[in-house]
């Protein structure tokens, strides 16, 4: 069976002491912060959290928060009453709000968790930080590049805690994979491939046509960057991790070719991110074919990693034991048909190497869920947020990672919209990844 349970808490806890842990803690500072935060929290102290946006993703976070001992949901807020009612059913003690500004005015609330459509991420986050609240905002950071930068600047100015919902930063198999890449397990990184394939229209049922744009906000440019801001932003951080630098230019192509139902966003995209050393990272997404599912692949000259599967495939895998090779040889000599002439060309089809798991008890997920799945790091992320709310200390590196993955997604979208090569603009570089 491929699916195996993994005790992630033990993994995070053990990072500080396990072999190679010191390296990981220095290169992934948010893990260090999380590990130490666990020890600093006084017993029984709870983070008072308000949930702004109680749709499907908001409910997913609520269910995770209800399992976390240091979390207390004190308020829920949504402009759509059915969503608010479903949250009230599981959080009967939480105060209900229809306007997020009233939430921010409440002195009882320490932190807010924003799970709203993308176009309101920036205004609510910025208002929240300025109101003295700690903020957890779902990915992607914001709808525009300027909004991303404004969110980052406000975070730095206020000194408050800001988390962006990039759960892979807390997924043990990604952390382990990064350690292996940095240790040279797959040799020199020569390519990065991200893909996310689905076969559905990405629509949600609408009870009333007047609510179409509110409920299916992912399909309209005013509210969303489509596949880039909703899917690519999760995967593009892999390039930052593996390359430890930024791409210098980006090009891409996007179209609405299959789901011609009035949507404004692309239903298939193909983007290339070019790094200064010649390595390219690609992102491809089609939502009218799901055969290949989703994955992030790091290609090295000695091996390949598939991060979602948590597997490593060496270019020259370890040979089978001698006795098995001997038996196979005898079997081939006895039963194989002797060719009369060798083929002049053999198709170089994909390797059938089954690979090995990069760590024990890997939990994998196919990315088909748009809300979230167990074991993808989301629970760890909100748990870490609660700890940060209690101790009030921002987590180094976390916002910067999310910022660059959001900016890369938006630059990819810009390259497709404008049908041109987009160079990484200097004004959107922040003091991270060797950029002063």
């Amino acid at each position, binding site marked *: 069976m491929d699916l195996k349970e993994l005790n992630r808490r033990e993994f995070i806890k053990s990072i500080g002491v396990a072999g190679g842990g010191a390296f990981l803690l220095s290169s992934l500072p948010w893990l260090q912060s999380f590990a130490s935060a666990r020890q600093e929290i006084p017993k029984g102290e709870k983070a008072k959290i308000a949930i702004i946006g109680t749709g499907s993703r908001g409910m997913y976070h609520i269910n995770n928060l209800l399992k976390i001992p240091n979390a207390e949901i004190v308020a829920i807020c949504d402009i759509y009453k059915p969503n608010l009612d479903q949250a009230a059913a599981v959080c009967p003690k939480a105060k209900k709000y229809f306007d997020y500004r009233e939430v921010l005015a409440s002195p009882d609330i320490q932190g807010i968790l924003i799970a709203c459509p993308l176009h309101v991420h920036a205004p609510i986050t910025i208002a929240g930080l300025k109101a003295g609240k700690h903020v957890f905002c779902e990915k992607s950071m914001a709808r525009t590049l300027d909004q991303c930068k404004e969110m980052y600047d406000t975070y730095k100015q206020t000194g408050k805690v800001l988390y962006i919902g990039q759960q892979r930063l807390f997924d043990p198999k990604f952390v382990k994979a990064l350690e292996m890449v940095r240790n040279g397990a797959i040799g020199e990184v020569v390519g990065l491939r991200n893909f996310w394939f689905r076969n559905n229209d990405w629509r949600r049922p609408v009870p009333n046509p007047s609510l179409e744009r509110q409920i299916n906000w992912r399909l309209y440019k005013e509210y969303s960057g489509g596949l880039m801001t909703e899917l690519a932003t999760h995967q593009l951080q892999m390039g930052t991790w593996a390359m430890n630098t930024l791409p210098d230019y980006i090009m891409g192509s996007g179209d609405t070719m299959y789901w011609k139902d009035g949507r404004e966003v692309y239903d298939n995209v193909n983007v290339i991110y070019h790094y200064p050393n010649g390595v390219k990272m690609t992102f491809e997404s089609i939502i009218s074919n799901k055969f290949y599912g989703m994955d992030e692949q790091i290609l090295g000259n000695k091996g390949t990693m598939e991060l979602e599967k948590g597997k490593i495939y060496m270019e020259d895998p370890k*040979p089978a034991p001698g006795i098995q090779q001997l038996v196979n040889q005898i079997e081939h000599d006895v039963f194989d048909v002797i060719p009369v002439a060798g083929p002049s060309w053999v198709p170089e089809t994909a390797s059938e190497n089954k690979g090995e798991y990069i760590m024990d008890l890997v939990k994998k997920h196919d990315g088909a869920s748009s809300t979230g799945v167990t074991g993808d790091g989301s629970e760890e992320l909100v748990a870490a947020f609660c700890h940060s709310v209690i101790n009030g200390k921002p987590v180094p590196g976390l916002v910067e990672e999310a910022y660059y993955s959001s900016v890369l997604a938006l630059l990819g979208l810009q390259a497709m919209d404008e049908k041109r090569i987009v160079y990484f603009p200097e004004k959107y570089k922040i003091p991270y990844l060797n950029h002063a």
Partner: protein
Amino acid sequence: MIKDIKLTAKRQRTEVFIFGICMLIAFSMNVFSILVYKTEWKEIYTQMGWVLAISLFLYFIALLLRLFYLFVFRKFIHKRLLEKKKH
């Protein structure tokens, strides 16, 4: 009616001896393959499962040959040779 089958001590010794020969051949194959394919020496014990499987396979082949000898050669050919001698 089911008959009791008696395995004499001599027969048991013979079978153990034949299986031992099969084991020796299989073990030699393992050593040979380690040398030829330049794999690790620890395969001498890690691949004992394969050695045992090959031993059983060889023992089975030896059994078939012996049964062939017993039923085909001794029952028919040997019998005819004896009959010819009598005449």
